[in-house]
């Protein structure tokens, strides 16, 4: 039964990921809140689950010439090195502290996105008013 629940939650977060909206930041809270999976297990899961989809997506995008192959490694190599430090810190923290930091992180991302949306909405309205005056 758990298998089906996991599957359902993953489909939902996969839909967001497919829309390019960060499915991972969705999968982790759902799976820890609804299924009581440990925070570090959910984080490990999210990183590895991303790999096959990413490979398929990269192949498709590369064919459409949408990938900048010149500069990516300048970001990726230092990132790989430092990410190991991040992991070691995460597994040595208590699950509770990690959950609080993660919760704060996704809440802030959500708030920033809402603010960006509101600014966009206001700009659109101003533009419409100007058009109406003209």
């Amino acid at each position: 039964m758990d298998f089906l629940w996991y599957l359902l939650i993953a489909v939902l977060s996969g839909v967001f990921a497919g829309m390019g909206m960060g499915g991972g930041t969705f999968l982790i809270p759902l799976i820890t809140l609804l299924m009581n999976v440990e925070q570090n297990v959910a984080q490990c899961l999210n990183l590895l689950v991303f790999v096959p989809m990413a490979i398929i997506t990269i192949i498709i995008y590369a064919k459409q010439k949408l990938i900048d192959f010149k500069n990516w490694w300048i970001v990726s190599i230092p990132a790989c090195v430092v990410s190991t430090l991040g992991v070691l810190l995460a597994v040595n923290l208590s699950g509770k502290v990690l959950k609080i930091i993660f919760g704060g992180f996704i809440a802030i991302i959500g708030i920033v996105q809402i603010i960006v949306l509101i600014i966009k909405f206001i700009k659109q309205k101003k533009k419409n008013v100007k058009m109406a005056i003209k």
Partner: protein
Amino acid sequence: MKKWLQVLLLIALGVFVGFVNGFLGAGGGMLLVPCIIAILKMDTKVAHATAILIILPICVVSGVIYAIQGSFDFEVFLPCLIGTVIGGVLGTFILSKLKNDIITAIFSLTMISAGVIMIVKAVA
């Protein structure tokens, strides 16, 4: 922008995104896209695509280290892997049919509530 400054910013970005993505197991792509657009003056579509390539090796490295540290659970991994692939394919189809702002709003509100619930549950 001078080439050396650009390289320096890209390395700094890598350090930051690498740490966050390793520490929280997510979020790297979201941070990357606006930053590489600013530094490399990229088109949004190219930035999205390139961000996936940047993130992929980071996910492999940090995912494997999590697993070595004992955070891997195959019983959870298998259904989630299958589900994510199905959902990912569905998502790319839905994307072209729905209005983007509404999805972003729903997504953001869900993230805020999930974040708050996580904090409250952890503190309580």
